[in-house]
């Protein structure tokens, strides 16, 4: 009944791991061929893989795990999806109804444990509820601000001996759940007026634009206005990075020009963003001191949460953007070209700083930034890039210019190490012929490296680019900057495995790159293996820091630009 409902919901791929409480479900999977099941090697990887699949396709990721440890292992992945508003449905087995509350074998209160990190959850009490609950779960997970939904199913409920009439509901009514649609027209008009009256405008777009499929409309609006735009870490790809109006990513490791333009702008359009502390820096009273703030988001609770909005607009990004463009076309007032041109002159001066400039070492040591630049060259900027968390993630965000939405797959909100490889698997399964790259570090990679085996089983030719600096780079960077270089538990060079041999042990290809001169050729070699997973162990300069970096407690204009320079 469950599998039939999933099929009727349009699910064709499930990531999971069997166990006692879900054996009835696994038997049903065995006896059908409409839904493909991917057996991961750890439940956390199942959630990240489903998450990667969802980020790349826009469709909800589906996960099936057993009760107890199966369910708790899935928690990190659910929290990751929750923080980044990723649609996901997690089905967890539960002990038999009669055992619930008795501390039965492999019993855990999944609905309780997952409560703060799900959009909603269901506990099935009778098999007849399954179709309706599946329908509701997918509806809730995918609409409004998306997010993960858990369905907890006791084992007896899936007993195949239960024979019930089955009908999948065509639609559902929920009196307690409404999805915001269009924005308030008066507010949109106000926002457009404010934008047209701006002398120093700035557009700040985030993950909501990607989740809401608003990238094309955002690009249209931005080009019509001719205004500068920046994307958040989650929003990379919402506006083409190679376009001249794009100032790069903003925030803690954003470009000098993006952060300066944010600080000095007089009208700020925030769209699909949540004024996260990685953007605003910790003290929001110093944030955009001169700006009238226009904030578009589908989640009313995101508006004026950390920064008060002058013009709040609740609605879906596509509906609001469409109406803004229409409003703009009809407006009598035109963009103040003189003001805009001197604003661009100012931005040009900031750009001259070249805050992402990389000076090569003369001794052949590879800088991590150069690896990402080479990766961009070799993949022609058209790969799906998943990452883990740390320095390598920031380098990938800064140096791999994303021109399209849904190409950049990373754990932004929760910052989950171990996310990269399983996410890249999910991407590869969604697009079998696409180039799915995982940029990782040797620290993060070891958090889910068991998925090497899954990649072998399903023949997933993911390309793993490991920026190996033999230490927990971002931790080490902070220890350099704030803890007098005392590397407390951030180094482990002597105990690192031989990653090339490790990849080979799992039946994959391993390549090591140690010299800058070899970088392009060996990366080319890695990508020439079309049907094989290749692990590229790139030895990079461990001393390298991620810059620019926001100065703690400062405004957005306050940045450290290099080891010797600050604003």
């Amino acid at each position: 009944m469950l599998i039939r409902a999933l099929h009727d919901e349009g699910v064709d791929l499930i990531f999971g791991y069997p166990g006692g409480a879900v054996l009835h479900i696994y038997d049903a999977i065995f006896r059908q061929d409409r839904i493909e099941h991917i057996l991961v090697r750890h439940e956390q990887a199942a959630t990240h893989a489903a998450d990667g699949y969802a980020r790349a396709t826009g469709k909800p990721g589906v996960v099936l795990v057993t009760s107890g440890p199966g369910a708790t292992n899935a928690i990190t992945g659910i929290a990751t999806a929750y923080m980044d508003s990723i649609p996901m449905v997690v089905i967890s087995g539960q002990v038999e109804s009669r055992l619930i509350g008795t501390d039965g074998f492999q019993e855990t209160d999944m609905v309780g444990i997952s409560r703060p990190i799900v959009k909603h959850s269901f506990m099935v009490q009778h098999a007849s509820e399954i179709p309706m609950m599946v329908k509701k779960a997918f509806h809730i997970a995918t609409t409004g601000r998306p997010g993960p939904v858990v369905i907890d199913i006791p084992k007896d409920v899936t007993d195949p001996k239960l024979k019930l009439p089955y009908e999948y509901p065509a639609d559902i009514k929920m009196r307690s759940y409404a999805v915001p649609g269009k924005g308030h027209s008066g507010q949109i008009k106000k926002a457009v007026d404010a934008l047209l009256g701006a002398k120093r405008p700035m557009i700040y777009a985030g993950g909501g634009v990607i989740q809401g499929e608003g990238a094309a409309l955002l690009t249209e609006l931005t080009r019509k206005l001719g205004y500068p735009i920046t994307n958040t870490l989650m929003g990379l790809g919402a506006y083409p990075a190679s376009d001249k109006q794009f100032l790069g990513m903003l925030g803690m490791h954003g470009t000098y020009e993006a952060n300066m333009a944010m600080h000095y702008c007089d009208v700020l359009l925030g769209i699909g963003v949540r004024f996260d502390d990685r953007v605003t820096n910790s003290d929001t009273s110093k944030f955009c001191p001169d700006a009238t703030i226009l904030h578009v988001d589908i989640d009313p609770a995101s508006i004026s949460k950390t920064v008060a909005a002058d013009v709040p607009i609740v609605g879906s990004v596509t509906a609001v953007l469409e109406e803004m463009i229409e409003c703009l076309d009809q407006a009598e007032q035109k963009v103040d070209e003189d003001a805009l041109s001197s604003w661009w002159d100012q931005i040009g001066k900031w750009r001259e700083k070249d805050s992402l400039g990389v000076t090569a070492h003369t001794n052949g040591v590879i800088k991590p930034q150069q690896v990402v630049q080479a990766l961009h060259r070799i993949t022609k900027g058209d790969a799906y890039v998943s990452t883990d968390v740390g320095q390598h993630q920031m380098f990938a965000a800064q140096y791999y210019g994303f021109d399209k939405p849904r190409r950049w797959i990373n754990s932004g909100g929760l910052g989950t190490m171990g996310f990269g490889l399983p996410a890249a698997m999910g991407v590869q399964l969604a697009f079998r012929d696409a180039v799915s790259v995982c940029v990782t570090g040797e620290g993060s990679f070891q958090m889910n490296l068991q998925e090497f085996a899954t990649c072998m089983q399903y023949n997933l030719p993911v390309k793993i680019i490991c920026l190996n600096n033999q230490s927990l780079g971002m931790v080490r960077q902070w220890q350099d900057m704030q803890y007098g270089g005392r590397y407390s538990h951030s180094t482990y060079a002597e105990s690192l495995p031989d990653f090339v041999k490790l990849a080979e042990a799992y039946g994959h290809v391993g390549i090591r790159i140690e010299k800058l001169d070899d970088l392009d050729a060996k990366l080319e070699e890695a990508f020439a293996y079309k049907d094989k997973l290749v692990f590229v162990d790139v030895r990079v300069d461990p001393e390298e820091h991620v810059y620019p970096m926001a100065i703690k407690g400062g405004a957005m204009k306050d940045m450290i630009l290099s080891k010797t320079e600050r604003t």
Partner: protein
Amino acid sequence: MRRIISLLMENEPGALSRVVGLFSQRSYNIDSLTVAPTEDNSLSRLTVVTNGDERKIEQITKHLNKVVDVVKLVDLSEGAHIERELLLIKVKAVGAQRAEIQRMADIFRAQIVDITPSAYSIQLTGTSEKLDAFIAAQAENTVMEVARTGVCGIARGEKVLSL
């Protein structure tokens, strides 16, 4: 600022824990909480007394509205409203004290609902302030036990919280 938020939610398992969990998760205060089914058995009415500045209250109401089980919500303190709380209090009552307590109960329009040779159990309804005052008025070291229900409330006039 003290606020009374009243809401209707699905009368389903887990709904209450979602609402209460939200408060602890986002470190909002709960001063009191009451919950019971309404005339429509599929709905529960929950009333929570909380405090915070304008911005915090706005966030609380927005987040409560986001909880999938919450159907409708009103901030009663935004307009004229009636709020009531019920108090059951057990006090030592011996000798001359017995008459004194009886008199005080009359003044507060409280009712003595149970009597033993040495104790009275008294019931009182009213605003939280009135209940506070009654407890404070008891003679020193005579209060044996206090049970309060927490606030429930309703808007004045025609305004109703319903579907």
